[in-house]
């Protein structure tokens, strides 16, 4: 660049460089955005596997939910003993808005600890029998099937860090399931998973009160 200092003739003053974004630049922006999301997904995936490996040293069942692969699994000391397909998924608005945001990485980095739960079925479907004589023994009928055979299964698990995780059986008269996660208008961080009845029951009855949940969003 040739610098020429002050002249009698006034120089045209250079206007601030205007950045006109070319199509190529726009494409580059999109590509960067896409790669950033890929990186985010891989980071969450890495935490998922690290936590699952660490969970193998736990003596009891832990729950893992891989929302990317639509799988919910019960792990016992590193062995996936039960795996169920997620048939439908609902995410709260509060969670959906956080996706691909940096604070979410910190949120899913470690396993969630169960704090409380409620369910429409019992943990142990106990039937009581009192027998003190042969007549009593002969007269009593026993349910050979689960007494909660017809109860709609819905289990709500409250984990730390504000996560509400719901397991719900798929209703038999539902025909259409959302192909993509349905957003529920709840500002908390809620995940509702619809799965088979027996899967929901098996998972609920196996997990201990102090179980952990490992999440892959």
């Amino acid at each position: 660049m040739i610098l020429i200092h002050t002249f009698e003739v006034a120089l045209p003053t250079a206007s601030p460089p205007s950045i006109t974004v070319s199509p190529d630049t726009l494409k580059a922006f999109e590509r960067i955005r896409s790669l950033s999301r890929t990186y985010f997904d891989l980071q969450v995936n890495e935490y998922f596997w690290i936590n699952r490996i660490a969970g193998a040293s736990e003596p009891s069942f832990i729950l893992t939910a891989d929302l990317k692969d639509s799988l919910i699994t019960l792990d016992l000391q590193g062995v996936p003993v039960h795996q169920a397909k997620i048939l439908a998924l609902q995410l709260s608005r509060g969670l959906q808005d956080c996706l691909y945001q940096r604070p979410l990485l910190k949120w899913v980095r470690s396993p969630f600890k169960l704090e409380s739960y409620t369910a429409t079925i019992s943990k142990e479907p106990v039937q009581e029998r009192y027998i003190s004589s042969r007549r009593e023994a002969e007269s009593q009928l026993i349910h050979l099937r689960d007494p909660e055979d017809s109860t709609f299964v819905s289990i709500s698990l409250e984990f730390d860090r504000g996560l509400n995780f719901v397991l719900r059986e798929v209703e038999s008269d539902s025909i259409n399931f959302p192909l993509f996660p349905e957003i529920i208008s709840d500002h908390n961080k809620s995940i509702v998973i619809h799965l088979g009845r027996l899967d929901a029951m098996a998972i609920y009855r196996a997990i201990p009160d102090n179980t952990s949940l490992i999440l892959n969003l």
Partner: protein
Amino acid sequence: MLKLVKPRSGCGTRFLFALSGRRLVLFVILSALVPLITWSFSSISTESALSLSHFAKLTSLSNQIDSLRHRVELLRVEFRDLTPEKPYLIVNSTANEIRLMQGQAVLRKAICSTGSYILLRTYGDRKWLFKTPRGRFKVNVKLKDPWWYKPDWAYIEEGLPIPSLYSPKRYQPGVLGDFALGFGNGYLIHGTLYKRFLGLPITHGCVRLDDQDMRIVFQTMSHGNRIYIY
């Protein structure tokens, strides 16, 4: 030729370059063109700078992604290697099913019967809860043609008087099928006479299998092999 000329008064600190002839013409042309070139160059360089920046960022991100993908794959393999190499058995006490596994492969799938969750109470406040325990266990005994030692609760269930602990009446052959695997605290995986109840929660805690399934499980599982019940 260039020479410095002292500026006229009132004009501030300005220097004029005195030029003559062709040099003056050349100078005028250059002074018109240079700002134009500079302006064009600055526009181009902004776009180029952005492109360079994007390229650098893309390259950096791509490299990081490749590295992360590789790490994730290694972690998957590490998790997969936690599965026992020897055959193991998984019992689903909710669905009353078993899976005989080796690695990730299912060797056999079958229905079974598990604990009924009946809480049996009787006089003297005696009680038993018939449930199959959950967790990870090991095969600690293998029995062929096992005999059943009939416990107190079995007599109470039938409303029958309870014999003495060592009464020979308590020892009953054939009830447990041809084979049995023990996994601790008196719990067994064994065959059954009550085949029509397979698939239902009917037992007093043991896991009952059909004779053919029990034979295969017995032949495949050795002492120390794992049993996972949930």
